[in-house]
């Protein structure tokens, strides 16, 4: 959201457990699985059809 660009990004101390979870081995496995299996299928295949002048 816009406020992420305008306000400091901070974390409440009570949410530290989520950081530990994010950097955990189980989350690493989850991210790596996503990168290996799902992500390749989502990557761009073709270049854009329009040229910049088409927009004006």
């Amino acid at each position, binding site marked *: *959201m*816009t*406020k*992420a*660009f305008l306000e*400091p*990004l*901070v*974390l*409440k*101390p009570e*949410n*530290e457990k*989520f*950081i*530990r*979870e*994010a*950097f955990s081995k189980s*989350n*690493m496995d*989850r*991210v*790596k699985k*996503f*990168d290996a299996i*799902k*992500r390749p*299928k*989502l*990557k*761009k*295949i*073709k*270049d*854009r*059809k*329009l040229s*910049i*002048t*088409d*927009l*004006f």
Partner: protein
Amino acid sequence: MTRKQFDEVFSCFQLSEIISQTPSKRKAKKILETFSCSKNLDLQDFLHNKALTFEQHLRSRTYLYFDNETKEIAAYYTIAISVFFTNGISNETIKLLDGYKDDIKTIPCFLIGQLGKSEKYERFKIGEYMLTDALEIIDSSHKSLGGRFTLIDSVNNSKVLSFYKDNSFLAIEDNEDSESIKMIRPYFEELE
């Protein structure tokens, strides 16, 4: 919609390209105003009123998906480099975030501040392709510069949060009353 179909239907342009080729700021603004999203006015307002200035002042980079037929903006995302403040957080958690020091006050990160589609394309399942494109750009910067994690400031909506979770992000906040929820996707290379 498959990725192939998505690439056939939409063309992606960086806002900087449009600014550099447009004769006037008014014309660029008019193009941005082809995007509408009454369900998420923050998303709409950012593109209509802030994206141009942010791009010109190098605060962020916005990528726009144009419908190849109508030439209207169907969706967009905005990314930037940012800093995460660690005040009030334990040294142990700071070290996890920073990877080296446990008493640092700010940690650089990549930020996906906006990502969404126009209401006209509400039924199009294209978010995963847009997020993948954003991550490709961020990964390219990460390879050149390093960096510990990417942060998304997501709308606090269960459907949206599930979408990001299914796409490798994890919430680092839990507040039902908050307008937004921060989610991160760490880089793990050095942990292996």
